[in-house]
């Protein structure tokens, strides 16, 4: 910016910035190299923060999506005691009515019922203990990506009782194929053992051996008859906008009776939720450290500028400049640095954030080819960041906060300059 052009000729007074502002801007030009270095520091720091925030935000979204689509859903309606006991035996009263109510709620995109029971699968001499999931075949595949890929056979069909879909790894463990009959044994509500023969109609393949060895889906009615407990244990819902989850939970909670509770994915999968929170905390910490480094760097540069200009401030004070205006001048210098730093931060940070949002970072090699399944959730090994207009105000917020805060101490220091002492010292 040419300081001369800012005020030269005394042009249109309405269009000209105040002399204080021009003084602030022109003062930054005095040590152009230092100013450029400061802007570079702010810009680089902002870019790093933008990139990290965008990446972790995208990672969080991916984790939520993966968790929701791995059968947990975004939210669930469960019996009121479930959050405390987490017992599979509990059932919802009149679950079909609740399901219809959930489907009619704005923002809910899909609802599917579940009933779980622990059981033993046996084929010949081979036995495996699994969690058997009773589902509605019509809606389950829409909400659960673990059973979308059925390379052999097909998924469960409504009304086709006595059938099952199991994971490929489980099939290999039991040495079974499509159309084989599996012996299933579960404990009934009255404590008696109950058994049935289930025909394998499909083998699911998720890409994760761990997940594949735990999949055993049957029709909801089969779980009802095997356990002697009627109805669904939960109603799992997907929502259009996970950001409005809190609002939806409150909305549903008001509509439902007291014997039901609405829980979110964070309550369903607390270990995953805490993982996401740990990531966010680390990001905040790292962003905080970067911001502190910027803060100290700018403060040091501003303080050096103040010390160099003590005589100037003394003269300005002598001609009647009050401390408040001096602080405004110093803050204006900080704001100018912050604005340029923000723009540089955007220039450097936006392409990086865009790249990671579109191409992502592939962690396949880092995991040595192992699948990315954690807590029954299948993750995509390519992590993608988030990208949007929100990055622009964030860049300005980060840089301006750092520069304005870091200008406060030098401004206060400048304000405290004693004109008589400063003028005497220079003489």
């Amino acid at each position, binding site marked *: 910016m040419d*300081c*001369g052009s800012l*005020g*030269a*000729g*005394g042009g249109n*007074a*309405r269009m*000209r910035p*105040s*002399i*204080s502002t*021009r*003084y602030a801007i*022109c*003062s930054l*030009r*005095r040590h152009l190299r230092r100013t450029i270095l400061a802007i570079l520091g702010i810009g680089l720091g902002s870019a790093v923060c933008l990139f990290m925030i965008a990446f972790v935000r995208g990672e969080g979204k991916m984790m939520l999506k993966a968790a929701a689509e791995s059968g947990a859903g975004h939210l669930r309606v469960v019996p009121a005691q479930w959050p405390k006991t987490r017992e599979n035996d509990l059932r919802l009263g009149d679950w079909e009515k609740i399901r219809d109510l959930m489907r009619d709620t704005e923002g809910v995109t899909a609802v599917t019922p579940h009933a779980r029971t622990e059981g033993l699968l046996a084929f010949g001499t081979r036995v495996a203990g699994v969690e058997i999931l009773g589902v509605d075949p019509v809606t389950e595949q829409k909400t659960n990506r673990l059973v979308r890929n059925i390379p052999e056979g097909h998924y469960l069909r409504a009304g086709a009782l006595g059938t099952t879909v199991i994971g490929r790894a489980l099939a290999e463990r039991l040495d079974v194929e499509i159309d084989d009959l599996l012996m299933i044994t579960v404990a009934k509500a009255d404590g008696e053992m109950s058994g049935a023969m289930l025909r394998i109609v499909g083998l699911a393949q998720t890409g994760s051996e761990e997940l594949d060895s735990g999949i055993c889906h049957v029709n909801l009615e089969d779980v009802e008859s095997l356990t002697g407990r009627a109805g669904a244990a939960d109603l799992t819902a997907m929502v259009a906008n996970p950001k409005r989850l809190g609002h939806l939970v409150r909305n549903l909670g008001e509509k439902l009776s007291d014997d039901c509770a609405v829980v979110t994915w964070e309550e369903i999968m607390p270990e995953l939720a805490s993982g996401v929170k740990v990531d966010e905390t680390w990001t905040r910490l790292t962003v905080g450290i970067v911001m502190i480094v910027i803060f100290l760097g700018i403060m040091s540069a501003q303080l050096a500028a103040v010390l160099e200009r003590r*005589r*100037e401030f003394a*003269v*300005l*004070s*002598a*001609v*009647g*400049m*009050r*401390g408040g*205006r001096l602080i405004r001048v110093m803050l204006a210098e900080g704001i100018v640095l912050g604005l340029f730093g923000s723009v540089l931060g955007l220039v450097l940070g936006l392409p990086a954030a865009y790249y990671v949002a579109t191409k992502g970072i592939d962690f396949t090699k880092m995991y040595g080819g192992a699948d990315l399944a954690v807590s029954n959730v299948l993750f995509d090994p390519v992590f993608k960041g988030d990208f949007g207009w929100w990055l622009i105000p964030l860049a300005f917020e980060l840089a301006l906060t750092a520069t304005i805060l870091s200008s406060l101490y030098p401004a206060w220091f400048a304000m405290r300059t004693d*004109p*008589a002492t400063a*003028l*005497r010292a*220079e*003489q």
Partner: protein
Amino acid sequence: MTNETLVKAEDVTKVYNTGKIEVHALTGVTLEVHQGDLMAIVGPSGSGKTTFLNLVGALDIATGGQLTVLGNDVSTMSKRRRADLRLHALGFVFQAYNLVPVLTARENVEFVLELQGIGGERAWRATEILDQLGLGEFADRRPNEMSGGQQQRVAVARAVASKPQLVLADEPTANLDGENAEILLSMMRRLNREQNITFIFSTHDPRVVAHARRVVTLVDGRVAKDQTKTPGPLSGAPAESEEK
């Protein structure tokens, strides 16, 4: 020209504490400065000239005695009120010019007007002041594009821009050659005569003394001599004097 008392110093002392040593910069200074005075304070280095100007300019506070500037007891004024007094009633000219280096001559003058809260007309007024003082051609130059004499004349323009009653000039000609010193002193005398602005100079320079109507000599922080005289012609020739 009225004879209003602008500055009244009664037994004013100023002591600086530099660690364990006390430096008595002023000891019992008593004098009055009247509207329209063109006064030179002379004396050897360390005699208290600059200290006296700082006290009158409300940049510093006396350790003892009473100092009244334009009816205000400076020692009881808040920092903010002292800043307002400087802004609205006092002007300063320093030995080293002390213009803001990143601003043009006009902007340096405008700055004071802006501090006074003058808005749209300040550029015009700054230009007018510079023109009146024959500095119009330097209006858009920055200090580093002007000679020392030109800078000091702009400093005088800045000092009088706020229409002060009293201008304090600390060794204003110390860095100027003879010709520039004469131009500057003539300008100040004209302002004194035409606008009734009171000037107090601290100086070692006999050229300044020659232009003064009153000469106060400080020695070891005390008033040793207080003379009134007829200022010499602009050539700087000394004039007859009358000791108080």
